[in-house]
């Protein structure tokens, strides 16, 4: 029983540590996913360690994500965002685990062509020319828009989904796009 008592104490300490870590983080909630993407870009440019995460169930509306940030830096981060016209709707302390974006890539080698899938989005490139030849998957309305803008373009010159996309599907396509660029050394 002494062993069990020790384990219980250790577990409690771990739980406390997890909880402390979570409460030291907050989330920035925005009007739409497009603003999240812009704010993430801006904060990363300023050197902040922020992460895009899934919102907790109580504030979930549909196709959305939030930015997790160090709560202690709230005032400085809000100042940067407000100056750039990207003030969030609200900031909320993190009190429970957040959903993490997909971080697994599935690769399909078609010889001359390479397809990378991130979550539900697939991007295919001609390895000889580095031209994007197809984009498939997804369900949000910016997918056909992104495909129209990117298919037929060289990897190096194509608009990035992060810049012109608005949704989680657009964000997933960005991950596939970055992975294809990495694999094609672009």
């Amino acid at each position, binding site marked *: 029983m002494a062993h069990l008592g020790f384990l219980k104490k250790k577990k409690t300490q771990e739980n406390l540590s997890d909880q402390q870590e979570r409460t030291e983080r907050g989330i920035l909630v925005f009007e739409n996913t497009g603003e999240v993407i812009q704010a993430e870009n801006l904060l990363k440019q300023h050197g902040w360690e922020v992460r895009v995460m899934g919102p907790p169930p109580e504030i979930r509306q549909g196709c959305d994500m939030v930015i997790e940030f160090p709560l202690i830096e709230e005032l400085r981060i809000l100042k940067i965002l407000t100056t750039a016209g990207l003030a969030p709707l609200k900031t909320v302390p993190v009190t429970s685990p957040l959903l993490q974006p997909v971080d697994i890539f599935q690769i399909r080698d078609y010889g001359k062509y390479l397809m990378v899938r991130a*979550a539900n989005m697939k991007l295919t490139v001609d390895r000889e020319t580095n031209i994007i*030849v197809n984009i498939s998957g997804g369900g949000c309305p*910016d997918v056909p828009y992104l495909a129209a803008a990117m298919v037929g373009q060289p990897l190096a010159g194509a608009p990035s989904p992060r810049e012109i996309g608005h949704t989680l599907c657009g964000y997933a396509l960005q991950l596939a796009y970055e992975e294809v660029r990495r694999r094609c050394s672009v």
Partner: protein
Amino acid sequence: MLCIVGTVPDDRFTLTQGTVELQGNELRIGQASVGVNRGTAALLAAAATAAAVLKQPAPSACLVGDTGNGKGSRKLYRHMIDVLPQKAFQTITLHYLQPLIHWHKKMQAVIGDLTPRPCLIADAGFMYVAKMSGEAALYDLFTPDVGELAFLADEEAPHPFYTRGFILHENNRVPDLIARAYRHNNAARYLIVKGEKDYLADASGILETVDHPVEEVLEAIGGTGDTLTGLVSVLIDAGMSVREAAVAAMRTNRLAGQRAKPTPATQIGDIIRHIPRALEAVLSECGRQAE
């Protein structure tokens, strides 16, 4: 009659409702025209082509421009809520739309009061929002690919972007993913799962498997899932059972793909051109003639 609801990637495209006519690479709906490309336009083009082969009325479309900011989608949800009680669609296929839970719930409240209840098919964003809302079971058919099936199977993921890794790793275990989706009430009455093999499933498991002809590159071609959804929608609306329609649609889509001699760079319009002959061949094999 079949109604297809979705978006086109142009914010200037105003809300348009009407019968669809396919003219070369253009869809015409009244005075409006849309280029045939991936997304709802590909679904509509496949549906209009199949309806012509079957000598069925051309589908009705309800479209709005939306490039991802959701403004057009909100107008379309509101419009459908207003007009559905006055329409008598037998089949409604819901496609690329911004997933917005509260609008979906409002729309389902209206659909729930329709008599007779239409057959409801959801793909893409509308399938996502049906699952996010916890109302997947109100639908007759979802058409996910294997990645989207993993999302349906993950009871905690509100969008495919958040599908947990241990479930994504089960891509090759389609029967397990199907069972998990039904166990958590996150699947429609039937599922067509698109992939290397196409499956029709319900809560009892896999009902049908179609794996010929094989064209591995079809997965890379944007719009091949949309054409399958368009085909099955028309076949169901023409009076086939879901099971019969699903098998015919899966075979037709594969055959049209094969006849296009595709590469990963093939565009969906090149496959849609082969749908009439492919559908005729499949109908002939299963002893059905175009009506």
